[in-house]
C-alpha cells in the first residue's frame, strides 16, 4: 500500500494516476516538485541532490506510515530523485489515493512537509553565473568550500 524510494532515475510513472487506481478510492492527488529556474532571486541552471540513501528511504517510509496512521488512505507513493537534475526535471513525487478527498490533501501535504524537514537529502544549486552552493548550509561554512573560496560563498 506504501511504496517509497530514493533513486537516480527519472521519477516518471512512479506515482502515476494509473498506478493509484482503485474503485474503492474516490480521490487521487499527485504532487510533483520540480527544478525551478530561480531561487531567492538567483538564476538557477540545475541542481545536484545527494542523499544518505539507506536512512532517507527508512525515514521516507516512516513518514508515509505516519500519514497512513493519521488518515484513511488507499495507496501512498513517495519518491525522491538524487543526482544531477536540469531545469524542469522532477525531484520529488508524492501520490495518494483515498476514499475521500480530505484525506488525500492532508496526507499529501503531511508527507511533503515532513520530507522537507526530515529526509537526509542535500541540494547543491548551480547558478547561471557559474557559482554553486549547498542550499541551507550555514553561512560560515560556505566561505570555506572551494566555491566559497573562489568568491561565490559570501553572498
Amino acid at each position, binding site marked *: 500500500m506504501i511504496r517509497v524510494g530514493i533513486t537516480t532515475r527519472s521519477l516518471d510513472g512512479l506515482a502515476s494516476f494509473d498506478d493509484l487506481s482503485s474503485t474503492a478510492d474516490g480521490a487521487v492527488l499527485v504532487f510533483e516538485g520540480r527544478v525551478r529556474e530561480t531561487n531567492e532571486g538567483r538564476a538557477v541552471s540545475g541542481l545536484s541532490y545527494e542523499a*544518505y540513501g539507506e536512512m532517507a528511504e527508512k525515514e521516507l517510509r516512516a513518514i508515509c506510515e505516519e500519514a497512513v496512521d493519521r488518515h484513511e488512505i488507499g495507496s501512498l507513493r513517495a519518491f525522491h530523485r538524487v543526482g544531477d537534475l536540469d531545469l524542469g526535471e522532477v525531484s520529488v513525487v508524492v501520490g495518494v489515493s483515498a476514499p475521500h478527498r480530505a484525506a488525500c490533501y492532508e496526507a499529501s501535504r503531511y508527507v511533503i512537509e515532513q520530507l522537507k524537514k526530515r529526509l*537526509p537529502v*542535500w541540494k547543491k544549486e548551480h547558478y547561471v553565473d557559474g557559482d554553486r552552493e549547498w542550499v541551507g548550509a550555514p553561512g560560515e561554512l560556505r566561505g570555506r*568550500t572551494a566555491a566559497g573560496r573562489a568568491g561565490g560563498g559570501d553572498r
Partner: protein
Amino acid sequence: MRVRTLFFGVYAELAATREGSTELPPGSTVADLVVALRRGSLDWLPDRVVVAVNQSYAEPGTALADGDEVALIPPVAGG
C-alpha cells in the same frame, strides 16, 4: 571502541571525505564524538551538529557502541 563516521553535502566537501573512523573511550556519547572530531581536523564542524546513529536521528546524549555508523547531517534540503 571504534565508530564509522559518514559525511554528506557541505560536510563531505569540507572534510574532503565521505567516510572516516574514530577511536573513542568505552561509554562515549554522540556529544563526545563531536568534541573529538572538532579537536581533530574538523574544527569547522558546528558543535550542535545533527547526528544519526545507525540511520536514525540521535541526541547528543545517545551512547555509542563499537561498530556504530554515525552520520554527520548538514541542514537538509530535500524536496
